[in-house]
């Protein structure tokens, strides 16, 4: 039962600052996922929280206690590493018991009970006497998780724990981690990944990081449906959102926007803060597009490529914007010959408007003063 509070947390290696003042509140028992492109500082932030890296600025509180200068152990955290990091010379049992044996005066029977309980939860009881080298990747990762469980951590940290597993095992282990979070309801979990599916399915809240800054924090659907800015809009969703430079034609109760390569659309947004004639960006998710036979569709172009993925078909359309194809994700198997002309449409409510700087333009919510 511990919440985390990061206030202006900074991390620099020598003169290179990697984290530029991270502010973040994580509630006790929450499952938070850090996502972001490679090199954005996810692992660094996790290691700062763990206590494996010194904090060079700001404060970190766990459970209401400033822990900047405490060891990982004192912080009450446990961590699962991407590479498992098991002790190669110890059996599975000893790997899981190691942390507990370091606590002076802990009775053997208590340690034994904890290890067996963790082994039972993770279904690794048959392997307790084996060395790590005699286990498969998935089993090793479960031992690593088990080692973390036995210590009853307040905060559970995962750094890309599934990235070394094959696709099927990844799904299975992901579900196990979700179940584990249910079982350990009071334990706060922080999980680093660059897999969107993991982020969307596991997280109570997702933290999107970019170049050492937090771009947005929110629930998975919140981020998906109303991204704060272009970065988040493009980062979540696969394939990513189509972004068209656009001109704002008129403002009012609705906003008329002319995207590059498309016809004008009326968005049901009272776009406060934008001016008629200003520039912006229009975002349309590929899955919101559908084929249309209208004479004058919002988007029209030549099909350059189709990819059938079984349950969906991706259609890449040249709508007259040099290198950037416009992608539509159509349900089922759609056969459209390459080179044919198609029209595409989307509901205006599903489109997102961003201002020139890339910040989302949202329907004005009147706040009490």
């Amino acid at each position, binding site marked *: 039962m511990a919440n985390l509070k990061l206030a202006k947390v900074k991390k620099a290696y020598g003169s290179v600052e990697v984290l530029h003042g991270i502010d973040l509140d994580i509630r006790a028992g929450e499952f938070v996922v850090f996502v972001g492109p490679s090199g954005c500082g996810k692992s660094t932030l996790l290691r700062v929280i*763990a206590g*494996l890296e010194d904090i060079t600025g700001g404060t970190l509180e766990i459970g209401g206690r400033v822990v900047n200068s405490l*060891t*990982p*152990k004192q912080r009450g*955290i*446990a*961590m699962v*590493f*991407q*590479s*498992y*990091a*098991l*002790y*190669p*010379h110890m059996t599975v049992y000893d790997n899981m018991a*190691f*942390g507990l044996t*370091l*606590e002076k005066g802990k009775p053997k029977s208590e340690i034994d009970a904890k290890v067996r309980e963790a082994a039972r939860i993770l279904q690794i009881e048959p392997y307790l006497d084996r*060395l*790590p*080298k*005699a*286990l498969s*990747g998935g089993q*090793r990762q479960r031992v690593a998780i088990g*080692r973390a469980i036995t*210590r009853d951590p307040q905060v559970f940290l995962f750094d890309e724990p599934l990235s*070394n597993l094959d696709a099927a095992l990844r799904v299975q282990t992901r579900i196990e981690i979700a179940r584990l979070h249910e079982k350990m309801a009071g334990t706060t979990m922080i999980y680093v990944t660059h897999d969107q599916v993991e982020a969307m399915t596991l997280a109570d809240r997702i933290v999107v990081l970019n170049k050492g800054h937090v771009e947005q924090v929110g629930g998975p659907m919140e981020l998906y449906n109303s991204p704060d800015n272009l970065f988040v809009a493009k980062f979540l969703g696969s394939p990513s959102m189509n972004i068209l430079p656009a001109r704002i034609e008129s403002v009012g109760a609705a906003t008329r926007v002319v995207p590059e390569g498309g016809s004008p659309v009326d968005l049901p947004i009272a776009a406060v803060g934008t001016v008629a004639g200003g520039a912006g960006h229009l975002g349309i998710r590929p899955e919101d597009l559908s084929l249309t036979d209208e004479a004058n569709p919002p988007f029209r172009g030549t099909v350059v490529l189709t990819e059938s993925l079984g349950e969906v078909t991706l259609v890449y359309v040249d709508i007259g914007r040099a290198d950037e194809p416009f992608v539509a994700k159509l349900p089922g198997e759609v056969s459209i010959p390459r080179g044919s002309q198609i029209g595409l449409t989307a509901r205006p409510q599903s489109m997102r408007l961003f201002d020139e700087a890339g910040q989302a333009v949202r329907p004005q919510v009147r706040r009490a003063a």
Partner: protein
Amino acid sequence: MPYVVKRTGFYALVVFIVLFSIFPFYYAILTSLKSGTALFQVNYLPVDFSLSNYEGVLSNGVFPTNILNSVIVAVVVVAISLFLAVTAAYALSRINFAGRGLLLLTILAVSMFPQIAVLAGLFEMVRWAGVYNTLFSLIFAYMIFTLPFTVWVLTTFMRDLPIEIEEAAIVDGASPFTIVMRVFLPLMWPALVTTGLLAFIAAWNEFLFALTFVSNNSTRTVPVAIALLSGASEQEIPWGTIMAASVIVTVPLIVLVLIFQRKIISGLTAGGVKG
């Protein structure tokens, strides 16, 4: 055809190398089993079998003591060197501090000085410390050549141990000392055994310091004791006894190597981290 030639050539070379390295020891065994005037005949196969030389050397008052001295010195040198080297290696390989590279080079540089160059200075130190004519002087002096290579080898080895394993131990709440003792040491068996054996052999064989820092017959180590074995008269060199003594002091080394070769298993870190 060339294949057969190559094969034959290869095995001929192997046989030559084996003979070349084994022969001196073989000849020593042969000689140690001879007695009387047979010593001065050249034979390449055993002709007689007499243990009198062994009896002679072992009943010669101080030689067993000399062996014990050698064992004490070599064991203590190995123990202290390995302990210091492991702890130093942890600092040198895992802790970032200013001047680390320079320190490593300095340690290596120490081993560049020929023994004879430091002999006089060391002798003064030994006298000053009051350990002249004791085994402590040898233990102390031998560190000069065992520590540089043990530190260097173990540092290199420890640097290659996966960092995540150490971090996992830190998260588990292990202190640096616990990490070294319970996590790193078991992973470093191959390096420890190799460097330990080399240090043991170096200490066991050392002659110059042993000759200089000890003057008392019963405090000497075996290399010096053997060199100073003398016969009934000044002119007579007791080859039989010398050879028997040489064989006796070689046996512990062979036994050690045979015991520990099984410990030198590669790939001990397999399975701990992905790879």
